[in-house]
């Protein structure tokens, strides 16, 4: 493990061009309110939440509009003062139609939130704390949108020894976490302190890649001489933000395959999640907005925005000057995001970016036969053999895929990024994993 100026890292991985220069110096701005918000009841992993409002009902900004539909599920709050216009099927960014609450914003409202009281988190037991996090609607803000409180529910016999906070932002183009670290380091540090104390963690660590010296500086200043939180600079490499890679980078430890960081008594969270956690416990504000980056040559005015959850992508892109050359819109980062089929889908709690690509940057690589060059093996942070997985996946040989540990794949796309033959490796793997899950569900 090398530390200091060089930065620590994991083995393998890729170095895509960062493309962060267009937005990394743009301070976070607030997106204005628009007239309509769409809130899918399922915007995180796990069970969808259940609506507690009726059509026509008046709602206020920050009011609970849907409650958790199970333990692995989240509360949902109205991002605006307005009325419930519909509870019906609406377009979801994943390309399907999904049950959503549509809210018509009150055009005459100031949208000022009534003062909410901070939560006295020190008096809460861990279970109460977890319920609060769930009621705050807090999901992992890094992109996967995993319900945050589930990670804090420690299984019998485990305890959180180390709290690890992810400030890598290893996806190209995205800079919203960076801006958050630069502009709101106190909120992040505050969130880390609240969580570390509640979970009883022995140490807290924030990993930040070295391409964000300003972030490292700001966090270090916010920690001050308390010295309770370690800021660890990391070499720039994708996919360092994948939690197992981050643990490997910071401590050199490997989380066993099929296990969670919790099995090593580690809890991993994103910096955005920490800031949102502090917002809730200190100011009583649930998750009703988030920071995201709008970038790419398809927008004339790239920006880092704080956007109310549920804002249609169309409105966000219009604010940023979507131009006529745009041919593709990606939600999330360019390595793991989703391309959108419609601009009428909303920003979700897990939306870290909106990228508009023009013809000249869209990838049109021709596909050649795999020449077994081995680049994908050297890209795979999980030390799999992606070339072989792709070959087996296109042949539908699921039993062999299982033995080749296809389920260890985190679908980071590093193999596909690096493949000179343009083989859609991760796409084949995703498809095969879907088939295998369906097959397993059928069997049981």
């Amino acid at each position, binding site marked *: 493990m090398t530390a200091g100026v060089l930065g620590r890292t994991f083995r393998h991985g890729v170095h895509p061009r960062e493309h962060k220069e267009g937005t990394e110096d743009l301070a976070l701005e607030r997106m204005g309110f628009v007239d309509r918000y769409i809130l899918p009841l399922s915007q995180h992993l796990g069970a969808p939440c259940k609506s507690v409002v009726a059509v026509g009902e008046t709602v206020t900004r920050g009011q609970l509009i849907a409650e958790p539909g199970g333990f692995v599920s989240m509360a949902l709050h109205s991002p605006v003062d307005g009325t419930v216009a519909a509870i019906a099927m609406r377009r979801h960014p994943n390309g399907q139609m999904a049950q959503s609450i549509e809210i018509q914003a009150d055009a005459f409202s100031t949208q000022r939130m009534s003062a909410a009281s901070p939560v006295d988190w020190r008096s809460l037991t861990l279970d109460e704390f977890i319920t609060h996090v769930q009621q705050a609607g807090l999901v992992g803000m890094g992109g996967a949108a995993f319900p945050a409180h589930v990670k804090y529910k420690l299984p019998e016999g485990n305890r959180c020894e180390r709290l690890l906070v992810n400030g890598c932002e290893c996806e190209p183009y995205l800079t919203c976490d960076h801006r958050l670290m630069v502009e709101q380091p106190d909120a992040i540090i505050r969130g880390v302190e609240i969580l570390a104390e509640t979970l009883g963690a022995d140490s807290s660590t924030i990993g930040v890649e070295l391409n964000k010296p300003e972030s490292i500086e700001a966090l270090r200043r916010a920690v001050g001489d308390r010295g309770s939180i370690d800021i660890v600079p990391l070499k720039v490499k994708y996919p360092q933000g994948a939690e197992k890679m981050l643990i490997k980078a910071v401590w050199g430890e490997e989380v066993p395959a099929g296990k969670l960081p919790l099995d090593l008594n580690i809890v991993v969270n994103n910096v955005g999640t920490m800031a949102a956690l502090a917002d809730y416990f200190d100011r009583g504000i649930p998750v009703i907005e988030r920071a995201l980056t709008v970038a790419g040559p398809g927008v004339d005015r790239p920006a880092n925005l704080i956007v109310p959850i549920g804002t249609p992508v169309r409105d966000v892109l219009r604010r940023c000057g979507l131009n006529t050359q745009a041919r593709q819109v*990606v939600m999330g980062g360019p390595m793991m995001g989703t391309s959108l089929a419609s601009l009428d889908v909303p920003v979700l709690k897990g939306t870290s970016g909106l990228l508009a690509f023009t013809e000249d940057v869209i990838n049109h690589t021709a596909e050649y036969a795999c020449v077994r060059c081995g680049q994908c093996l050297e890209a795979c942070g999980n030390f799999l053999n992606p070339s072989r997985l792709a070959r087996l996946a296109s042949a539908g040989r699921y039993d062999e895929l299982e033995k080749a540990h296809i389920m260890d794949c985190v679908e980071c796309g590093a193999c596909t990024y690096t493949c000179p033959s343009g083989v859609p490796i991760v*796409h084949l793997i995703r498809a095969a994993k879907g088939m295998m899950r369906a097959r397993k569900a059928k069997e049981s």
Partner: protein
Amino acid sequence: MTRRDPRLLLQSAPFLRRGITTPRLMVDVLIALVPVVLAAVYFFGLSAILVIVAATAGAALTEWVFGPDRRRGGSLTDGSTILTGVLLGLCLPPGIALWMAFLGGAVGVGLGKLVFGGLGQNIFNPALVGRAFLQAAFPTAITTWTQQGAITELLTIRPSNFALPFMQAPAPAADAVDAISAATPLGLMKFQNIPTGVEQLLLGNTAGSLGETCAIVIIICGVILAIRRTFDWRIPVSILGTVAVFSTIVWLFDRTEYPSPWLMLCSGGLLFGAVYMATDPVTSPITPRGAWIFGLGIGLLVVLIRIWGGLPEGVMYAILLMNAATPLIERIAQPRAFGRGRAVA
């Protein structure tokens, strides 16, 4: 909304690519072969160009006629066939008849690659399949080495190049270059026990196949390709390391009977084979540990054949044999997956 939405293109992540394509890799290797070709021309005259062009023409024509792409000749665009042709040309003797070189290219691509389903599917290195075919079919022609020349003979073309199938070569003029035949350093060592100086070998001032003689050029180009990560550096390192160690052990037993490690390393097709032939990604193991084992096997076989086999040179057969073993090597040399014990294939 007055303006119509753009027609959005749906794709699957990742949306970024490294931008280095397979044809680009092939072109990189071809560029790295230019110095080798120039060295061949320097030592063997324009004959070198003729032989390389003939072999490439045979390879390309076969790919064009029988290639798998629906569009005729479409599979030529990946550049691999041209590379096969040039590699084959470079491992032929300067005086070989052009029709033989052409036939070698055709057989290499046809039987070495296309019968398996084209690029990426073949088991054996196509260029070496072509050469092995020529060695079996024309054992005399392929082991007739002509004397290397110098810059003064740059424009020399060997009459034997123009021999027609099933005919005697045109009678050489008394002072023609091709009247002077020569033995390769390995042949000299094996059959007459005459060692050749290392400086001669490094410069390439010896008899031999077109591309194999000038060691220093091959080493430099190989290092550049390895740094650019065009091929897996482990394979040549493993081959050369094994040969160095194994031949040193043998040489220490009897320094007069057996060739020195330097002679072993720098002579014959070892460097050319290790850098350009064994590193063919399609026919070598894809995993890092597999690459080490693969190189080790080639190194051992080369020394075995050269010292105790009937032939003075064994690089071609060593590589082909290990090509055949590649699927087996991959079985035992899968990478150790993150957070796991050893993977099984």
